């Protein structure tokens, strides 16, 4: 007969995760609400500065979204119409690189091309045009397009590639001209994704922190996220910070509801793209080639320039400096700790959600449990940080706790990605065999070790890689809680950009980039094992 081993209750892993999330997000939120009780919402909304910050946040997000989406459409169509050219897969893969490349690193590259002394400006001047400034609204838009246009193009391309071959063949047989193909076949495919991707990009740009911090340049171009940071760190103005945090909370909740009702995910970039060789279409090669070349140049030159310029007179000084090395080791600690905590919370939530779905037939409760992990989408990092500040300040030196808090915030930031990666595999590891597992009475550690781990080690390795890389490149949490005592590479990089030390910034950026790549590949390999042949 089967021996009885300890059977942990099904809610334990998820319960622990919920408890951790409640402590990390719920307590700061309560602190925030408590602090806000002496504010009147009307005053907050009527304050001219607050209003200006809110409207700028919305304005830049709308413009960024429109530009990204509109520019992505011709690119996606051109890529879909040119199914075969050297480097096509590489280019498409590059579109999702923003997951691995920290925002602040890409900004250094963008500045080195589009900045005052960058290649783009020099070209403009050679042709007799005025140079443009990368700082301010135009810089924010440029960087947002750099990150989000490829994301949109990827989604549109996937939608185009999903069009059944039969439709193309039919179009060819009927001899439809290019304009009709666009109107009848391509546009409907793109339109079906339009609302979803727009709201997603809008959400990303609306809460964008690093780009606005580095390229915003002063009070004229400040979003709510950055204004909260400034109120806290520049001015110790807790009232303004809390007021703006509250506004941000409300707006993010609205965006989250909109996102959900459209069925999109912030983690969209994670899904792998399935390419379908559409061989029948071949027209307008030159035009397609032009579009693709411009897009490729736009995306690749900043990265290439970054790497080329990283080797400069300051390189040795930067990489041997104690500050750099201490920041690098802090970055590594933050990345691994935040990654591990995010994965642990994610696995916990998914295991209990699986039980709710498969054993108790409570699909909506399972869904709700998973949603708990997306709390950071409603409470953005800076808002969460403000809450933690208010919560912890009376009891401890928040700057001494800096790294611990940064790890906590980053683990919550990575959690939605972890959940998204693990959801399918955790369910699949049980779905076919769940009745058998139940009848054999396999549970607890043996179940994890024998049945779940072999299926999950690859996705867990991947989610650990993604979440560690995200944490390694994050600026928002460390900007609030970092100090001269505790810095990470992104903070050091921000300081070096902020004091216009370009050479040092370039080297630091590449160092951070290498660290992220190393984390991304090594973690996948170490945890997930060899890639499948």
């Amino acid at each position, binding site marked *: 007969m*089967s021996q009885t081993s300890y059977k942990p209750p099904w809610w334990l892993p998820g319960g622990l995760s919920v408890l951790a999330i409640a402590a990390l997000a719920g307590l700061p939120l309560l602190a925030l609400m408590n602090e806000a009780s002496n504010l009147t919402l009307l005053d907050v909304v009527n304050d001219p500065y607050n209003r200006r910050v809110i409207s700028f946040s919305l304005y830049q997000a709308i413009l960024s979204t429109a530009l990204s989406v509109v520019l992505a459409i011709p690119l996606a169509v051109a890529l879909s119409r040119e199914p075969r050219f050297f480097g096509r897969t590489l280019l498409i893969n590059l579109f999702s690189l923003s997951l691995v490349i920290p925002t602040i690193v890409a900004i250094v590259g963008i500045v080195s091309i589009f900045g005052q002394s960058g290649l783009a400006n020099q070209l403009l001047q050679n042709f007799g045009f005025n140079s443009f400034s990368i700082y301010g609204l135009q810089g924010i838009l440029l960087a947002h397009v750099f990150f989000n246009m490829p994301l949109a193009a990827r989604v549109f391309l996937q939608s185009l590639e999903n069009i059944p071959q039969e439709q193309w063949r039919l179009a060819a047989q009927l001899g439809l001209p290019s304009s009709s193909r666009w109107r009848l076949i391509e546009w409907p495919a793109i339109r079906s994704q339009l609302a979803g991707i727009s709201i997603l990009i809008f959400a990303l740009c609306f809460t964008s922190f690093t780009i606005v911090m580095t390229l915003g340049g002063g009070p004229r171009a400040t979003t709510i996220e950055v204004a909260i940071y400034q109120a806290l760190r520049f001015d110790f103005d807790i009232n303004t910070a809390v007021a703006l945090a509250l506004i941000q909370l409300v707006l993010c909740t609205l965006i989250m509801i909109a996102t959900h009702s459209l069925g999109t995910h912030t983690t969209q970039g994670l899904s792998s793209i399935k390419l379908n060789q559409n061989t029948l279409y071949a027209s307008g090669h030159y035009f397609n080639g032009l579009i693709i070349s411009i897009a490729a140049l736009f995306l690749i030159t900043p990265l290439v320039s970054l790497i080329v310029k990283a080797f400069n007179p300051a390189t040795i000084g930067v990489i041997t400096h104690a500050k750099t090395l201490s920041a690098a080791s802090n970055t590594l600690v933050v990345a691994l700790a935040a990654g591990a905590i995010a994965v642990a919370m994610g696995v916990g939530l998914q295991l209990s959600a699986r039980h709710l779905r498969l054993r108790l037939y409570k699909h909506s409760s399972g869904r709700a449990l998973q949603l708990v992990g997306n709390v950071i989408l409603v409470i953005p990092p800076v808002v969460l940080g403000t809450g933690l500040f208010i919560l912890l300040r009376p009891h401890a030196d928040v700057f001494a706790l800096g790294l611990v808090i940064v790890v906590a915030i980053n683990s919550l930031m990575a959690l939605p990605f972890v959940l998204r990666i693990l959801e399918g595999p955790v369910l699949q590891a049980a779905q076919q065999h769940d009745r058998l597992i139940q*009848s054999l009475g396999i549970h607890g550690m043996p179940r994890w070790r*024998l049945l779940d781990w072999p299926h999950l080690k690859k996705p867990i390795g991947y989610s650990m890689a993604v979440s560690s890389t995200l944490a390694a490149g994050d600026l928002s949490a460390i900007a609030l809680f970092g100090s001269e005592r505790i810095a990470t590479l992104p903070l050091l990089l921000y300081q070096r950009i902020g004091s216009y030390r370009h050479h040092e910034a370039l080297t630091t950026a590449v160092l951070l980039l290498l660290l992220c790549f190393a984390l991304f590949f090594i973690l996948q390999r170490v945890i997930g094992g060899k890639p499948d042949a």
Partner: protein
Amino acid sequence: MLKLRALRFSYGEEDYQFDLSAGSHSTSAIMGKSGSGKSTLLNLIAGFLKPSGGDIQWLGESILSLPAEKRPITTLFQQHNLFPHLTLHQNLALGINPSLKLSKEQHQQLLQSLDAVGMAGMEYQSAHTLSGGEQQRVALARCLLRKKPILLMDEPFSALDEATRESMQVLTRDTIENNKLCAIIVTHSQNDAIALEASTYSLVNGRLSSHT
């Protein structure tokens, strides 16, 4: 004796009520179209579903409150009976102890059971290398190892090709005979019921009726 007494289950518009008596050493075949609730019946007996009323008794005692793994029941599913990434040894050992720790004696029993289904010497093969018929044999071996008096079978032969099905039917019938099991098979095929020499019941409109 396995007794189902007014065992009820409602889900949406579906409503079932089962009454059944099966001898301690007997074979019963439940026949019905797909969607008639055959699987629901097995899931209720096995403990995968919670009934909304009624009782299940084995040897005069209710087993309703027992969790699936504690019931005197072992189940042979239509497919996915084995974990494909584990060896046959591991798959069988899971039937004895979920943490895979076996005594010498249990190890011997394991080998014997494999021998009994004609798969001797293959214990260290990975399950995914086996054919569908071989997988069902190993699954049957594990049912034996579990030493449970009741054997539930959910369309155990329907995923097999004709030749394999026949030999599997014979093996199953002999196994029930030799181990004196209370067997219940859910199937849509008359042929299965005849091959296992089972008393047949049909499931229509959520109720069981006996064919004599």
